[in-house]
């Protein structure tokens, strides 16, 4: 669970920590996988058009993974990622196609709507103290209905060509949408690691009681996390609208599972307090690599989901085994445990902690 933090502070220990982190492992997997695919395709995979397609379809997974990660880092789950994305994508499409709104304002309205819905979700959770899982389940249902109402059974494709061109343009074979996703990730990383607001968010996720005692309102952080999550979903929707041939009611339908898979593979704990922007981005890379490999060897598309499931399971189980081994190493020598305070982590480690997500 070692996430990337403190870079640049004390170079050597930080580097050592990084070398053992999930992010590092993922980086190796991505490089190895990419090279492997390159060899398997006898080089054609490393050529411009292939790279372009590879990156084109990477933008959305990265963004929705990050959107989920922000919610996870305060210990919340956001089930509405897909529905919210689909809703705002359809909203943008309808605004442009049916109401003649120019592309720019339409995108802004769509993203703002997603952010606002995120904000309202957060406020609702804090005000009622109902489990975030259930609340986002509710908003997901509502948004699915709203999306359907907007689009009906048609596919909206009569919108701005400029936007489409932007969505398809790829200077140096690097698609603009992918750059957008990377820029968003970089901004999010800066927010999380550098700003006071981001640190407060993480503090509230890491130890809510301590955060409260230090004058950080955990309620406000939950609202903030859902708002940022909404914003990121909005951006993902904008990217989808720009790069897809058209939007319909199925947009966002298959976003939910990947949005969880990316941060979990990337090393984000469901209990909150950890953040791994780079890890999430790399995990999205890994999932995209699986998809590309599938296409390369022309296997059934179902293999992708199966493999992602196995990878997620392998990551969490492997991570847990690793953690138990570390704990055992710490507690094994008799002397070190003399300073254990009452009830410090020991009973929890000794007993199966099988409580579900909160």
């Amino acid at each position, binding site marked *: 669970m070692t996430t990337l933090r403190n870079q640049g502070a004390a170079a050597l220990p930080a580097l050592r920590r990084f070398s053992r982190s999930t992010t590092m492992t993922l980086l190796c997997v991505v490089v190895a996988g990419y090279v492997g695919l390159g060899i398997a395709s006898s080089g054609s995979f490393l050529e411009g058009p292939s790279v372009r397609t590879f990156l084109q379809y990477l933008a959305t997974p990265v963004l929705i993974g990050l959107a989920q990660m922000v919610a996870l880092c305060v210990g919340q*789950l956001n089930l509405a990622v897909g529905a919210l994305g689909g809703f705002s994508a359809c909203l943008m499409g309808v605004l442009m196609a049916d109401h003649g709104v120019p592309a720019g304002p339409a995108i802004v309205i769509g993203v703002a709507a997603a952010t606002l819905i995120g904000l309202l979700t957060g406020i*609702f959770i804090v005000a*009622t*103290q*109902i*489990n975030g*899982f*259930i*609340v986002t*389940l*509710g*908003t*997901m*249902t*509502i*948004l*699915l*209905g*709203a999306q*359907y*109402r907007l689009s*009906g059974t048609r596919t909206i494709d009569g919108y701005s060509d400029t936007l489409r061109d932007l969505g398809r343009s790829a200077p140096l074979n690097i698609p603009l949408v992918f750059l957008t996703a990377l820029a968003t990730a970089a901004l999010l990383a800066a927010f999380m690691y550098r700003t006071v607001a981001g640190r407060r968010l993480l503090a509230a996720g890491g130890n809510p009681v301590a955060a409260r005692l230090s004058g950080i309102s955990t309620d406000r952080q939950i609202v903030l996390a859902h708002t940022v999550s909404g914003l990121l979903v909005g951006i993902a929707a904008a990217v989808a609208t720009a790069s897809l041939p058209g939007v319909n009611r199925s947009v966002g339908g298959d976003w939910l*599972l990947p949005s*969880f*898979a990316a941060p*979990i593979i990337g090393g984000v704990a*469901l*209990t909150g307090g950890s953040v791994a922007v780079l890890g999430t981005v790399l995990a999205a890379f890994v999932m995209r690599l699986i998809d590309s490999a599938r296409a390369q060897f022309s296997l*059934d598309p*179902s*293999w*992708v*989901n*199966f*493999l*992602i*499931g*196995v990878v*997620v*399971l392998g990551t*969490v*189980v492997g991570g*847990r*085994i690793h953690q138990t081994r570390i704990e055992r190493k710490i507690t094994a020598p008799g002397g070190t445990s003399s300073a254990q305070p009452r009830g410090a982590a020991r*009973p*929890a480690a000794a*007993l*199966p*902690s*099988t*409580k*579900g*997500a*909160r």
Partner: protein
Amino acid sequence: MKTAVKPPGSDTARPTDGARPAHRLPFWVNQQLGLLVLIVVLAAVFGTLRPAFFNERLVLFPLLRDVSTLTVVALAQMVVLSIGHMNLAVGRMAAFGAFFAGFGYDRLGLPLVLGLVLCLVAGAAVGALTGWIIARTGVNSFVVTLAMDFALLGLVPLLYSACTENAAFTTRPAGLAELRSSSLADICLGPVCGSPAVPQVAQFTVLALAGLAFLYYRTRTGRELLLTGANPAAAELSGIPTGRRVVLAHALSGTLAALAGFMAAVGTGTFRASIGDDFMLPSFLGAVLGGTLLTGGAVSVVGALLGTTLVGVIRKGLDLLGVGLESLNIYLGCVLLLALSADRVRTVVSYRKVVRST
């Protein structure tokens, strides 16, 4: 500490913990009763506005068939919720089970009952595997069932494409068609026949309800499941085999999911991979509306039936009123959030009352 009062409606010192068991509330705010009243009132309203609502063959029969299936789905979720876990893979476990039923009929030429048994065993096996992973590694059930969902999402279509040409089993053993379309009207005791509104598949639902009610309200195992959910550490120290109970709960959940998959397949007449695609939302809706806690330790078997029925009635009624499919979800989401908010308000009010009286 000397004024240790024990008012009837008190809560623990954690007012922020979401829903609460219903049995401490006075009877007139009893959740089940509330649901029942709501269902009756809504049915009356819809019936008055659209007399066709009470058409037994065309409206009530399909409504009850859906409700029967979805109740079993909600029960599958309720069983894991009772130990404080979640099962995100209910739908996929249903598809997995249904595959084996179809396989049995198509390839092995099994009679109706044996195919059902094969289906249930497959569901139990995949559920038990999930439970075993959770119990052994202590990884959050949310993540494990999420990974399981992914894996089955890939595996089931692969199995279908490996065993069939057109990705579905259409062989129907003797009795399946009758099961699909017959109602109680086809069962006569002398001159008295049953209502044509009640489908015959409901027998499975009734069996599942009765079995679970016996399990949770009468038996040692049921109580142990609940206590494992309420406090796993205390349960372990009290001599409850919590690991085995976790496996059992997930195996039961898998079995029920597979049963629901079978019922859904009977409803459509074909065994295909898309069975159970839309099970996740109703599974939580039914269980949570019925009064089952997400935190574990409290279930309501009848509540799952009532919650699902309420959702079914609203769906059907609004459909008849011409609200249109697209908006249905909007209302359902609102109902969920409102129902839970109301419960939350009650909790806060009773908490305040207790503090004041101390």
